């Protein structure tokens, strides 16, 4: 067998722990109340369109994108807006949320809620991009970057490949795996549509080799599509990082500080492809997503199809309740997810999983001296020297940190994962990135 492709430098192999891998997608019942964050994406906040006591249907526009990098938010349920409250979301801060009391199950006109598969799509690239914008599609891998912007190809740039990220390199998470098994055709139609929108000659779907069933099924169905290639990849974290995935699939390296379009690629998550299919073919805005609810002590790890705005607490109750021994709850995967401080945090467009960790797992070990073992250097997928960056940040040498390319860090956490001294490398690098970023911005202004 030919050696499977992967990215070149660095990378780690954390324990996979994909407990919910074989579980089918369960449709989670609509809760009594949902808390829809007004801003659920990377970029400028959206502006609120509803007020207290407004009646909304499923798919009603709740908040509108004003700025260039922004996204629309639609109502995931039908009911009445109870209030606009500030509650703590996954960012750890209080943000404006639209609290909707659920009444009935009324859909906005024009939304096709059936499961019939529509394959034909005769829209132009511009029309598709407009629909993505209108329906509030954002990157569903976790970064929540508004998708339509990726398809507004700048003048003079050609897109060779549309790259679909179905790698799911984060341990524990299985939501992408589940949709690939159950919504294979929808995803492939979605990929076809996105390929059209991007103008790419070919679509490459990268799937890690630990999901053999998904690879087989995707390959089978892809036969009836033109120019969509399913590419099994060697298992290695962080293969799902944009730049690493492009390197693995095309051998092209995105230059430092540049976007994938620089090397003729557009990258989207497989979940986004599914959402795009629903938006374009079924006129359905992004109002629900598949969330993996899992953990070592969780009774029944599951993949749930959840409406946006459902409190995390209800998902946890559904899979057998919060284990007694829980010390940390993470929104997302264990490598890049965010720890949340309470369970009222709602599911947003970017919530790929809810992970409960036991007390023993969640406590960090005391950091010791750096023994200069160079493990962090050898695992860094960006070819950085994390031990050095940490020292530079600690001694506030921002200029040297910039010279050592601190801004190239993709915050994958491989360095901190591998460190035998349990040093808080990424914490410090993040502080440094914030500071150096501010310095660079103020320099650009001058």
């Amino acid at each position, binding site marked *: 067998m030919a050696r499977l492709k992967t990215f070149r430098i660095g990378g780690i192999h954390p324990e996979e722990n994909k407990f919910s891998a074989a579980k089918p997608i369960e449709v989670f019942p609509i809760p009594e109340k949902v808390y829809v964050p007004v801003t659920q994406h990377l970029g400028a906040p959206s502006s609120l369109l509803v007020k207290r006591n407004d009646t909304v249907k499923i798919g009603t526009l709740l908040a509108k994108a004003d700025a260039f990098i922004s996204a629309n938010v639609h109502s995931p349920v039908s009911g009445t807006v109870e209030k606009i409250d*500030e509650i*703590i979301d996954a*960012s*750890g*801060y*209080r943000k404006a949320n639209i609290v909707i009391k659920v009444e009935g199950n009324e859909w906005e006109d024009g939304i096709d809620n059936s499961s019939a598969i529509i394959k034909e799509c005769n829209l132009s690239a511009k029309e598709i991009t407009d629909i993505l914008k209108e329906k509030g599609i954002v990157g569903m891998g976790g970064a929540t970057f508004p998708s339509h912007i990726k398809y507004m190809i700048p003048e003079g740039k050609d897109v060779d490949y549309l790259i679909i990220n179905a790698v799911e390199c984060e341990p524990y998470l299985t939501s992408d795996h589940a949709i690939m098994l159950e919504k294979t055709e929808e995803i492939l139609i979605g990929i076809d549509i996105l390929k059209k929108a991007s103008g790419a000659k070919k679509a490459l779907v990268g799937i890690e080799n630990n999901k053999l069933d998904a690879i087989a099924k995707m390959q089978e169905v892809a036969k009836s599509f033109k120019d969509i290639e399913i590419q099994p990849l060697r298992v290695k974290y962080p293969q799902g990082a944009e730049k690493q995935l492009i390197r693995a699939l095309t051998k092209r390296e995105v230059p430092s500080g540049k976007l994938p379009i620089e090397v003729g690629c557009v990258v989207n998550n497989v979940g986004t492809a599914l959402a795009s299919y629903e938006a374009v073919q079924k006129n359905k805005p992004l109002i629900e997503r598949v969330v993996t609810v899992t953990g070592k002590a969780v009774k029944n790890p599951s993949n749930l199809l959840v409406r946006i705005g459902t409190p995390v607490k209800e998902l946890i109750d559904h899979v057998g309740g919060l284990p007694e021994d829980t010390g940390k709850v993470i929104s997302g995967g264990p490598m890049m997810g*965010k*720890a949340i*401080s*309470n369970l009222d945090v709602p599911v947003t467009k970017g919530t790929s999983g809810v992970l409960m960790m036991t007390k023993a797992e*969640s*406590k*960090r070990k005391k950091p010791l001296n750096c023994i200069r073992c160079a493990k962090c250097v050898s695992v860094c997928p960006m070819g950085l020297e994390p031990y050095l960056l940490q020292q530079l940040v600690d001694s506030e040498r921002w200029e040297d940190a910039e010279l050592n390319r601190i801004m190239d860090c993709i915050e994958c956490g491989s360095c901190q994962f591998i460190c035998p001294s349990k040093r*808080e490398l990424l*914490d*410090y690098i*993040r*502080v440094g990135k*914030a*500071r150096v970023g501010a310095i660079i911005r103020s320099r650009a202004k001058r």
Partner: protein
Amino acid sequence: MGTIIIYSVIALAVIGFISAVILYFVSQKFKVIEDPKIDIIADLLPAANCGGCGYAGCRSFAETIVRQGNMDNLFCPVGGNDLVKLISPVLGVEAVEREPQIAVVRCNGTKANAPSKAIYDSAMSCAFANTLFAGETGCPNGCLGCGDCVAACKFDAMYMDKETGLPVIISDNCVACGACVTACPRSIIELRNKGKRDRRIYVSCVNKEKGAIARRNCSVACIGCGKCVKACPFDAITLENNLAYIDYEKCKLCRKCVEVCPTDAIIELNFPPRRVKEETAVVEEN
């Protein structure tokens, strides 16, 4: 044996002489003519290089003083007014006194007042904790308790109180250099006038949330009720974003605001115990 010593002495002497000649010419060639005042003033400065004056170090501050020719808008917080009196004669200008200042921590979210809502377990860096979440107290503006300010202090004027989880300023050591003010990612610490007999009144809260939400996190939060604004006879208090602020230039330390504050968010320091309050309390009961 004797000849070896003689040769060594001669050789060393010759080398020494040649080096001296070279050094002389080099020093002539690269001579930098500098105002002698810079050296005099630099010697007077405290040599702490704390950056409290806003310049890179004491020497660059001395250069700035000499270039400007007076001390207007330039102040060394470490040396204070005594230093101004020393430097002014060198420049030949009149010494202008400045009100001495001190750093003030405007947060009283102790572990008792604002119980923990989460356990922080990452790098002991406020800058990082600030990117991660609102803080153990749940207050998005309050003290994170990791001690970036204490680490920034070069004068041993701060320490973290283990009991409360808040930084404490030792007023005898604080020179108001402002290092802690810049170190704090949440701008909690402020430089205020030290006040007569070290007496100060300030709002010990920077929370900008609505009163009800602020109170949910912290029992001593400023809820923006505005009672102090009405009570102040000198118009020293302003209310903005649900937060009261006392202008230390206008404040006459009458303590009326402290009495009316419903959440004890206004703090008075170093005042004698008040007898008046007990009497008024009795009157109110009647």
